[in-house]
C-alpha cells in the first residue's frame, strides 16, 4: 500500500533560532487581579527550558498562553516566528499540530486503550493506512518503554506509566515543540528518573524544543539547559543550572534549598499576633 502524503509531519523542525519568545506579556482572568505581569522569555531551538516557581505563581498559565488556549492582555507571544495572538482558528490549529503537550497526570482518554490514545492524533490529522499507524504507535511506545502495554486501558496504568503513555501521545506527530505541565508531580523516585531521562533523550534525539513547568528542583537541575523562576506573576531569576546552584539571589536560594521562609513568606498575609489575640481576649 503506497504511503499517502503526510503534510503535518513534513516540518518537524523549527524554522527560527528562537523557538518560543514572550515579550512584555501580561495576563489576568480579571482585570483587577493580574496573574502574569511583564513576562520576557526567549527559548532557543533544541534546548530544554524549565519554568519554576511556587504553586500558584502562574507557571501553567504561561504554557496555556504559548499554546493559544488563553489570550494575553498585552505583549507578544511568538512560536516558530508566528505571533500567536494574531492567528485565526485554522492557523492556530495548524500550529497546535506541531506542538505536543503533556498534561499533569496525563489526561489520557479513558474510553480508549493505550494504543488508541496514541493513535488518536495520527488518525485525526493524517490519512495514513492502519498498518503505518500501527508501526508509528508501537515505535512511540517503544521510545517510552511501554510497547508491551499497548492493549491496557488508562485505568489499569500506574501514575508513572500513564505519564509515559501521555508523553508518547505528545510526540506522536513528531512535533517541533513539546510542553510539559508538572511532569514529575506525584511520581516515585524510579519513575521520576525515568521521566526525566526520557524528556532529555527525546529532546536531543528528535531535535525538538522542550518547555517544562515544574517545581521539582532536583530532577530539573539534572536535565535542563536553562531555568526561569516565576514568583507572583513576574520573572524573578533565571540562569543555567550551574548559575542557579551558585546563585546568591534570596529567592533562588530559598527555592533550591527548600527553606520554609524567605522571599516567599511562610505566613499567609494576616493581622499581627498582638492584634489577633488582643481582639479575642
Amino acid at each position, binding site marked *: 500500500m503506497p504511503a499517502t502524503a503526510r503534510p503535518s509531519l513534513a516540518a518537524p523542525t523549527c524554522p527560527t533560532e528562537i523557538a518560543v519568545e514572550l515579550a512584555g506579556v501580561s495576563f489576568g482572568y480579571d482585570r483587577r487581579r493580574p496573574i502574569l505581569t511583564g513576562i520576557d522569555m526567549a527559548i532557543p531551538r533544541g534546548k530544554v527550558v524549565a519554568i519554576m516557581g511556587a504553586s500558584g505563581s502562574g507557571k501553567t498559565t504561561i504554557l496555556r498562553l504559548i*499554546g493559544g*488556549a488563553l489570550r494575553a492582555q498585552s505583549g507578544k507571544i511568538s512560536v516558530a516566528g508566528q505571533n500567536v495572538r494574531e492567528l485565526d482558528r485554522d492557523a492556530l*490549529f*495548524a500550529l*497546535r*499540530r506541531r*506542538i505536543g*503537550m503533556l*498534561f*499533569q*497526570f496525563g*489526561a*489520557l*482518554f*479513558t474510553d480508549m486503550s493505550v494504543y488508541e490514545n496514541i493513535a*488518536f*492524533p495520527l488518525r*485525526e*490529522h493524517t490519512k495514513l493506512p492502519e498498518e503505518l499507524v500501527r508501526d508509528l504507535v508501537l515505535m512511540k511506545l517503544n521510545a517510552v518503554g511501554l510497547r508491551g502495554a499497548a492493549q491496557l486501558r488508562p485505568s489499569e496504568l500506574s501514575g508513572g506509566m500513564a505519564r509515559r503513555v501521555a508523553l508518547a501521545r505528545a510526540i506522536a506527530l513528531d512535533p517541533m515543540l513539546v510542553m510539559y505541565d508538572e511532569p514529575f508531580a506525584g511520581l516515585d523516585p524510579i519513575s521520576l528518573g525515568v521521566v526525566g531521562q526520557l524528556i532529555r533523550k527525546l529532546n536531543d534525539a528528535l531535535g525538538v524544543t522542550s518547555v517544562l513547568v515544574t517545581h521539582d528542583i532536583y530532577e530539573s537541575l539534572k536535565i535542563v539547559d536553562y531555568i526561569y523562576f516565576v514568583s507572583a506573576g513576574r520573572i524573578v531569576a533565571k540562569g543555567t543550572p550551574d548559575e542557579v546552584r551558585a546563585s546568591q539571589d534570596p529567592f533562588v536560594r530559598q527555592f533550591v534549598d527548600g527553606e520554609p521562609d524567605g522571599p516567599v513568606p511562610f505566613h499567609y498575609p494576616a493581622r499581627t499576633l498582638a492584634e489577633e489575640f488582643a481582639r479575642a481576649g
Partner: protein
Amino acid sequence: MPADTIAFVLRRVGRATQNSISRLGFAARFFALVLYHSPAALRRVQLTLREVYFSGVLSLVIICVSGLFVGMVLGLQGYDSLNKYGAGDSLGIFVGLSLVRELGPVVAGLLFASRAGSAITAEIGLMKTTEQIAAMEMMAVDPLARVIAPRFWGGVLSMPLLAAMFSVMGVFGAYIVGVRLIGLDSGSFWGNMQGGIDFWPDITNGIIKSIVFGVAVSLIAVFEGYDAKPTAEGVSTATTRTVVGASLAILALDFVLTVFMFRGAAS
C-alpha cells in the same frame, strides 16, 4: 437594617438574573456551534453509532419495563373509571390515546433524561475535569465535533424510537390487564383503539413531540457537561441540573406542543 437587607437581596437577585441570562446566551451560541459541527460528526458514522448505543440501546431495558408497568396501571385505573359509565370496552382507545399522545413521549423523555442525560453530562464533565477536553484542543481536534456533537445526535436519534417502544409496551401491558386479566373482549379492545386513533394527527404528533424532547434533553445534557466546573462537586451539580432542567423542559414543551397540536380537537 431593612434597607441593607433589601439592597442585598436585590443585588443577589440582579446578579442571579444576569448570570442566568448570560448563561442562556452562551447556551444559544453553544447550540449553534453544535449544529455547525454536526455534519462533520454525522459523517463519522462510527462515533455517532457508538453514542446511539450508549444512549439508546442501554436505555432499552428501563424504557420497556417502565412502559409495561405504566400500561398495566393505565389498564387497571382506566377500566375502574370507564366501567362506571359502562364504557369498559373503550379501555383500548383510552390507553392508546393516552400513551401515543402524551405518556409515551413524556415519560420516555423523563426516563431518558434521568438515565442517558445524566450519564452524558457526567461523562463530559469528567472529561473536562481530567483535562481530556483541554488535551484534545491542544491536539488541534475540536471537542465540539469529536465529543459533543456525536453525543447530541445519539440522543436525538434514540428518543423517538424509545418513545415508540414505550407506547407499544404500554399498550401491551394494558392488553394483558384488560383482556387477559379482567376479561374484556379482545376484538373491541383493538377495534375501538384502531377506530379512535389516527396516524395523523395522533401518532405523528407523538413522534414530533418525542423528537422535540430528544433535542431538548440532549442539548441540555451536553451543555451542562461542557459548562461544568472542573471539580467533583461541579460535575455532580451539573448532573443534577441536567436531570432537573431537562425534566422541566420536557413538561413545559409538552404543554406548548399540546396546545398547538390538539387545539383543533377541542373545537
